[in-house]
């Protein structure tokens, strides 16, 4: 049962073949059996999950009308507040904090009867591509425990690949949903910016952050997308418009007449040969399904990475100023003689990890007087050029595609001492965040050179999220009929320990 899709679990629940309490217990047992190896979770809320499940079962027994995913369990990225549940964002500075309120995403999950199993591991404040920057240890990729599960949402993606949960929530600032999905053989979607409320999402870079669904199938991601998306008056950047019909789009299984734009600049040098070959094969599947392939050029994408590493740290340096040891989080050095500023400095030294400090200093520099125009100002101009590149490309194509990442999962420790090499992981995912459009990653096979999953990225214009689900659903169905079984059946069996 735990290997099924969320849709199949929901179906079994609605036919009363299983209760939500039983389904939740199966996942809790799986977490107990394998999480000492995977370390996807920072906190497991056994009691809370079982009581949420029991509440759904009671409503079902009473004949109440329930949401499509009611009773299905989910893993929540630790960057989302959940009332009373430890929330750290992977940082030591928030150790022991229990938020007094629910994020809107959590409010929506609860309203849909989705059972929250616990909080998943992540790079500290979502800064990283491997979860190696978590203050609480690295998550391991279920495909090869010596490899990274991607980041920052490595815990969410790994929990899906290890069958600890059928659904998860991620957040994506520069690729933190899509890159982990790519390297774990799962599906991850960054909705249009403003499509899902950021209220209660611990901010990293406010103009780029976006929460979204993680799942093992495109349809499951769509079902979760519709459960969490929508206008929220608590988020001033939330879009006040109907949620795109992504579930219907995921079920269409038809791409006839659609134009698919291959982004010329997101290929070539630096892309692993096996990634390239699986990407090309997936394109052929779309051609066979009736889509038309066109090449598009986005010449300013080569500056996206540089602009991102100015904009995101700049916003982070401002957002992370709130961790001042005064109102919540840890406090260090308050011995009665030290002043507030000194306590602040000591707390932030101990509470923040290396990458977070690096980005705060970089952002402080980029925003400082005398350098502002040359760095932050120039990066904002590049952002305009990227938005323009996308606009031109979408004039020629309904969706754009690329490999999600240049390589498959790398070894833990391989890039942790080289920030620039680590930043390159996000080269194909960052432009989407800069323009605020939608992006999806889905698995398109195993790289012939190392046997590890390859991700295929589909990008759609703002509030046209349904188009990426339509293309993703069609491609997934074509690949499934070719393979005969889902990609995760190829992942090694994790022995219970």
């Amino acid at each position, binding site marked *: 049962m735990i290997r099924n899709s969320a849709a199949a679990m929901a179906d079994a629940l609605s036919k009363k073949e299983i209760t939500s309490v039983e389904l939740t217990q199966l996942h809790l047992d799986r977490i107990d059996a394998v999480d000492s190896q995977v370390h996807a979770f920072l906190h497991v809320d056994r009691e809370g999950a079982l009581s949420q499940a029991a509440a759904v079962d009671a409503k079902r027994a009473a004949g109440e009308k329930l949401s499509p995913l009611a009773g299905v369990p989910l893993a929540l990225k630790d960057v989302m507040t959940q009332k009373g549940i430890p929330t750290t964002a992977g940082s030591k500075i928030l150790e022991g904090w229990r938020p007094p309120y629910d994020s809107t995403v959590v409010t929506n999950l609860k309203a849909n009867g989705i059972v929250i199993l616990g909080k998943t591991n992540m790079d500290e404040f979502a800064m990283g591509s491997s979860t190696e920057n978590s203050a609480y240890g690295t998550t391991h990729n279920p495909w090869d425990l010596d490899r990274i599960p991607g980041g920052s949402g490595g815990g969410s993606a790994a929990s899906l690949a290890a069958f600890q949960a059928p659904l998860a929530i991620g957040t994506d600032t520069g690729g933190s949903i899509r890159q982990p999905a790519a390297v774990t053989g799962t599906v991850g979607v960054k909705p249009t910016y403003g499509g899902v409320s950021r209220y209660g999402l611990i901010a990293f870079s406010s103009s780029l952050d976006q929460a979204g669904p993680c799942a093992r199938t495109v349809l499951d991601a769509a079902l979760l997308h519709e459960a969490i998306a929508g206008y929220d008056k608590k988020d001033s950047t939330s879009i006040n418009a109907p949620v795109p019909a992504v579930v219907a789009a995921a079920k269409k299984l038809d791409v006839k007449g659609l134009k698919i734009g291959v982004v010329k600049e997101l290929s070539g040098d630096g892309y692993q040969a096996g990634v390239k070959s699986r990407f090309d094969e997936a394109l052929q599947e779309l051609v066979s399904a009736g889509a038309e392939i066109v090449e598009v050029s986005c010449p300013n994408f080569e500056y996206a990475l540089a602009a991102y590493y100015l904009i995101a740290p700049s916003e982070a340096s401002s957002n992370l100023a709130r961790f001042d040891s005064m109102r919540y989080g840890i406090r260090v050095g308050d011995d009665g003689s030290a002043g507030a500023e000194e306590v602040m400095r000591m707390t932030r030294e101990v509470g923040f990890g290396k990458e977070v400090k690096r980005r705060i200093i970089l952002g*402080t520099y980029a925003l400082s007087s005398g350098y502002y125009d040359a760095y932050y100002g120039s990066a904002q101009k590049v952002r305009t050029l990227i938005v323009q590149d996308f606009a031109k490309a979408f004039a020629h194509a309904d969706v754009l595609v690329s490999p999600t990442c240049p390589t498959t999962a790398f070894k833990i420790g391989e890039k942790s001492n080289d920030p620039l090499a680590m930043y390159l992981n996000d080269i194909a995912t960052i432009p989407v965040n800069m323009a*605020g459009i939608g992006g999806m990653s889905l698995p398109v096979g195993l790289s012939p050179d190392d046997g590890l999953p390859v991700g295929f990225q589909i990008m759609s214009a703002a509030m046209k999220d349904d188009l990426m689900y339509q293309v993703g659903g069609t491609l997934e169905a074509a690949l499934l009929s070719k393979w005969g079984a889902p990609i995760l059946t190829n992942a090694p069996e994790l022995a219970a320990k």
Partner: protein
Amino acid sequence: MTAISRDEVAHLARLARIEMTDSELDHLASEMDVILGAVARVQEVAGQDVPPTSHPLALANVFRDDVVIPSLTPEEALSGAPAKADQRFKVPQILGDAE
């Protein structure tokens, strides 16, 4: 040419309220130099004629009526405080001797 000196990094750390050891400063200064060298590329295409984009959406101020809505109780608001007294956050000395 170095883009940034060790003293500048120390100044930034003070501005950002992060205490740093000498070895941390040494390490970060050399890393920052490499990173700034890489990100400075944005200047190649950031011409005078290109307007800046701060945000993917056109933002407008959002207003609501000035009415009381449910919010956190004082106990909830203070629940995460490292120190509190009399329904208030208790903080170290902010004026006077300590800097």
